[in-house]
């Protein structure tokens, strides 16, 4: 991997670690996973139309974020059912519209070659936007997490905040598709944050640990993939999962 690619991967990982903290605390790990699969049909359509897969995935993910948001607003009971349906439908449609090598690459990520200047700019700006959103809105997200009703009384537009958060989540998935693919990007968002939750005593610690760990496993996983000539995505996620289980065991022992 080139230095530019590594910098991009680190920026995306930092955004993933930060956005993942609130996904874990909001208990939306499953929703996030299902949302990541929504990218697949978008990639298929983009490939068929000969446009950049990232564009198709991003558009479809934003749409998926809107659907999850609308259902969360209307009925909490139906959300899990919806996610199950969306997950299966997205995989089915995606596998019909994408084929062969493209499908494998979309699912598990591919060789991350030299990014174009347009892609570099888009990914960097988007990763910075996600990072800025979580840091700038962390207080509002905390109040809304404790009680949406209290949040309303202090002037927080909870519906808008939820929508923005889901779209930032969707954007983060889109950013990581190049390296990790549809199946694994959700893991880079959830696993470092879940690990950080076990190690942290307050919010600042959790955000810092999750971001640092996401960057570390991304760079470490990339290095391992390069040395062992293995695909990058699975190496990154395996490393992240190993960190999670090690801290989980330690956490259980200390508890």
């Amino acid at each position, binding site marked *: 991997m080139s230095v530019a690619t590594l910098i991009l991967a680190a920026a995306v990982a930092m955004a993933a670690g930060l956005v993942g903290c609130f996904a874990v605390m909001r208990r939306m790990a499953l929703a996030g996973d299902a949302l990541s699969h929504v990218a697949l049909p978008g990639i298929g359509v983009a490939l068929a139309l000969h446009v950049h897969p990232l564009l198709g995935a991003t558009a479809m993910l934003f749409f998926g974020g809107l659907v999850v948001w609308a259902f969360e607003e209307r009925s909490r009971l139906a959300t899990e059912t919806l996610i199950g349906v969306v997950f299966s439908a997205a995989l089915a449609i995606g596998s019909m519209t994408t084929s062969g090598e493209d499908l494998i690459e979309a699912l598990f990520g591919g060789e991350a070659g030299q990014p174009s200047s347009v892609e570099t700019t888009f990914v960097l700006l988007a990763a910075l936007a996600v990072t800025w959103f979580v840091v700038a809105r962390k207080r509002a997200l905390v109040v809304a997490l404790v009680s949406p009703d209290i949040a309303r009384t202090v002037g927080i537009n909870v519906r808008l905040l939820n929508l923005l958060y889901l779209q930032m989540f969707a954007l983060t998935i889109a950013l990581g598709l190049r390296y990790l693919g549809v199946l694994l990007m959700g893991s880079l968002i959830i696993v470092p944050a879940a690990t950080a939750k076990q190690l942290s*005593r307050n919010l600042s610690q959790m955000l810092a640990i999750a971001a640092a760990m996401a960057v570390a496993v991304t760079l470490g996983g990339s290095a391992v993939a390069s040395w062992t000539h293995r695909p990058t995505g699975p190496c990154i996620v395996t490393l992240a999962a190993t960190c999670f289980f090690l801290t989980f065991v330690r956490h259980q022992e200390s508890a």
Partner: protein
Amino acid sequence: MTDPLLRVEHLSLHVGATPIVRDVTFSVAAGESLAIIGPNGAGKTLLFRALIGAVPFEGTIRWKAGIRIGYVPQKLDLTRDVPITGFDFLRAKPGASTIGGTGLAAILADVGLPTAIAHLSIGSISGGQFQRLLVAFALVDHPDVLLLDEPTAGVDEPGQERLNELVARLQCERNMTVLLISHDLSVVFRHATQVLCLGREHVCVGAPRTVLTSERLSAIYGEEVALHVHDTGEGTACRWQR
């Protein structure tokens, strides 16, 4: 005559297709203490949620412009294992940065919560301690009105007394307006200047002395209610200062 701080006219609330609150009208002046009483399921919490704009309603709810609301909800179903401390939560309130750590510590002392507790995760403290933290959060930016939905539920006896006294003191010192949902009729009798009773078939508004009678209470709750209050004067939140 000045405008009331809150005016509610012909308010009706539904859960799905089921009507819960029908055609309620009342107003609250600045510095007043309105207690809301009624049996479970009468729509007391739903009324509060309508007042803060969290649920749709029919009728009119009009707050005086620029009012700051401190809201303490009924017991929250909180995720227990989040690494958010009491201080994280208090500092998350807009306006917390202006009063700083000393100001937050003073508010915690007011609600009887040691600062050491506020350094712990909100999921690891007891229900009563968390309830005090919610009251502290409500007080952070000097609200004009407090909406308290059974604020002492789960709080120990001395803690209840302390919170009741704190609310009464804030009313006196800052002319704060209080809307309180409570099942403790003796607290209502002692601290409220006005009572709104939400019964399944019966709605009434009036001074504690006129509303808190055995006959009225039986009509509201649909069964005999024994009322034991020491007549030390109704709605006298500031009596200890006079």
